[in-house]
């Protein structure tokens, strides 16, 4: 193998490594974390707006609190829990998949599963008219005789 080929192979490997390292999921920065948490929180004085999207004073104060907690090194879960302690699960735009609110997530899955069960049952059932019993030898003989007589005519 020539030195040129070795250099080319090394360059390809180096490029692949650089791409792989560059494509690794990067930990979110503080600003991204604040935005992500604020997007999950419901603004208490708005109609269906997140704390991130609301221009209200209350939402601004909530964002400031989230930013401070992020700076203090609290986890996302701990920050969400702090708001849940004061406002309950209501403050989360996506309700948790536990307890009663879990029904919201489970119900569509249960309905689809039920639909599949019903559809499966319907497909397994034989369709069309009920199977007719096979003719007896006597009936067959009678039929043959009738066909023969009709042919003779």
């Amino acid at each position: 193998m020539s030195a040129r080929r070795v250099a080319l192979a090394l360059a390809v490997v180096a490029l692949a490594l650089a791409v792989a390292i560059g494509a690794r999921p990067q930990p979110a920065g503080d600003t991204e974390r604040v935005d992500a948490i604020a997007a999950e929180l419901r603004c208490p004085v708005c109609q269906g707006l997140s704390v991130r999207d609301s221009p209200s004073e209350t939402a601004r104060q909530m964002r400031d609190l989230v930013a401070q907690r992020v700076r203090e090194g609290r986890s996302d879960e701990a920050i969400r829990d702090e708001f849940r302690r004061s406002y309950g699960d209501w403050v989360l735009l996506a309700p948790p998949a536990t307890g009663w609110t879990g029904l919201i997530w489970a119900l569509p899955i249960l309905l689809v599963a039920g639909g599949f069960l019903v559809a499966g049952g319907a497909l397994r059932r034989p369709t069309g008219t009920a199977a007719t019993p096979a003719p007896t030898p006597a009936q067959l003989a009678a039929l043959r005789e009738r066909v023969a007589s009709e042919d003779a005519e």
Partner: protein
Amino acid sequence: MRAARIVAVGAIAGLVIVLVLSFRYDPHDIRSAAVGKPAPAFALPALEGGGTVELASYRGKVVVVNFWASWCIPCKQEHGALASAWSRYRTADVVLIGILYQDDPDAGREFMRRLGGGWPTAIDGDGRVALGFGVFGIPETFFISPDGVIAGRHIGPIDEETLVAGIEAIRIRAVGR
């Protein structure tokens, strides 16, 4: 066919139950998650006279915490009821604490001077105390029992009857213990 019918009847029955339960619930009736839990501790700058207003210093008393602002019209409407309750209970084991929320302290002082008051009032400059109590909008009033637990909450302008009922309910429970 029979299974499909059972599923359909079950689905319709479930839907009817959900609708009946949903119509019984007022979507505007926001339940507080803070009720039944210890009141968030706070030590805030006093609106008048310097110093701080600290919740912990009123432990052992019934505390009524009222969030308000000078720009809030319903806060003006309820001010008379708060003043009546204050003059009725100020010598008893009941404390009324006003918390100025999302307002300029000077405007708050002017409001209190104009309408009268005299109960301890604090400034929640960054709104952290209000967020800790789970305040949705002002005026909002919380009843705190002597052991520091939030016993009740009232959203909107409060009248004297509701104030007295909230305070007396806690006092009766405290005596019964």
